[in-house]
């Protein structure tokens, strides 16, 4: 069987227009999942938890997508886009779970496209502009290290849907952290210029770390990862004074609103559109 033939099988038509270009009719990423919230789980708390984790992922995915056509190498562009896609997938599942849990039955689109910056609960580190490649790598290292440790705890959550989303995410996040850590070592241990940029990036990102450690303390895991990477990269551990305020309470930098304006522009211009 030739490759040409095998890919041609995908072009076989169905009478009911189920090809991608026409939409599939399966918009809900939790389609056909038992969505009962178990007894003993506070639905509002569950929804808030899902929204915060989804907002981190959505905002990160949007920043990663900004690297498309601008990354240093084609392979890195593909990597950043793939990591963004994993995070977008996690965001979709988490938004859907939030909408079922909080009783509003809101869709993933309602959360992603029809909330304003003050309603977002992502950490501010996720929304900062991409900066140079070094900053994007440092940010990915910190956020993926935190998210991996957080998701590992969530695999034991009393809500089976959130636990399952987390179990799946752990596998993906291990790849993200590995990618960021390897680049951090390569750049930190690279040329004087790449080393200088990594130091600057670490100093810029570090004050936002405090915000990650407020709700659920996985500080130990994140600091251990950071120690390991900085030691291998010949970089100093950053010393920082945590910033006041928190994206988890809806307090954001001036960078989130323009990011959302771009992300939400099509959905808001055509609110009834389906794709």
């Amino acid at each position, binding site marked *: 069987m030739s490759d040409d033939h095998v*890919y041609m099988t*995908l072009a076989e038509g169905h009478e009911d227009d189920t090809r991608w270009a026409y939409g599939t*009719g399966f918009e809900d990423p939790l389609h056909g999942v038992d969505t009962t919230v178990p007894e003993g789980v506070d639905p509002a708390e569950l929804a808030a938890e899902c929204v915060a984790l989804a907002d981190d992922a959505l905002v990160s995915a949007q920043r990663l997508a900004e690297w498309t056509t601008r990354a240093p190498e084609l392979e890195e562009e593909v990597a950043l886009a793939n990591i963004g*896609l994993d995070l977008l997938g996690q965001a979709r599942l988490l938004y859907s779970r939030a909408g079922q849990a909080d009783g509003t039955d809101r869709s993933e689109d309602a959360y992603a496209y029809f909330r304003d910056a003050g309603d977002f609960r992502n950490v501010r580190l996720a929304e900062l502009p991409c900066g140079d490649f070094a900053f994007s790598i440092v940010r990915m290292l910190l956020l993926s290290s935190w998210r991996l440790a957080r998701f590992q705890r969530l695999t034991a959550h009393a809500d089976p849907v959130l636990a*399952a989303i987390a179990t799946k*995410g752990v596998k993906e996040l291990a790849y993200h*952290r590995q990618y960021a850590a390897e680049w951090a*070592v390569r750049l930190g241990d690279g040329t004087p210029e790449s080393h200088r940029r990594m130091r600057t990036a670490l100093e810029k990102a570090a004050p936002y770390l405090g915000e990650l450690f407020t709700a659920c303390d996985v500080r130990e895991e994140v600091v251990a990862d950071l120690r390991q990477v900085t030691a291998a990269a010949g970089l100093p551990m950053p010393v920082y004074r945590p910033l006041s305020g928190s994206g988890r309470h809806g307090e954001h930098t001036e960078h989130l609103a323009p990011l959302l304006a771009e992300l939400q522009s099509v959905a808001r211009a055509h609110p009834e559109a389906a794709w």
Partner: protein
Amino acid sequence: MVTTLLDARHARHIAEQVPDPELPMLTLADLGVLRGVDLTDDGTVVATLTPTYSGCPAMAEMRADVAARLRDAGYAHVEIRTALDPPWSSDWITQEGRRKLADHGIAPPGAAPRHGTAPVPLVLSPTRHTVPCPRCGSADTEETSRFAATSCKALWRCRACREPFEYVKEI
């Protein structure tokens, strides 16, 4: 009762033959994403699928394809369910699936890492990880990018025959 059993088996057979939208040399059964096909008492076919990656854009397409093929085969009532737990693992790709991947120049995955509740170790030292070239069989290969055209694949190249090839990642 006999009819029901046969129908369930037939429905399963139909669903198993649906090609994967991104790796069409594999059926959904080869890939291990088809978790079950059952026939309820009222004649509804219930097919259960599990996503490979959270962001896999092919998931909606898979659901639509399975539903369409079953309807084409005469099953009027089809229900598609999503199973998130346990999460898909590349270990679930069948032997037949691995053979088909290799036949099409895609290196099949090795054994997937097991993630328990202990922190996932971060390994920074170079690891000896050999992926034989699916074209010439040489073990003299190297990774060029851990991320490739689809979520589930990495990009490698063979130093012996100089050909680049894709490799399905362990997850």
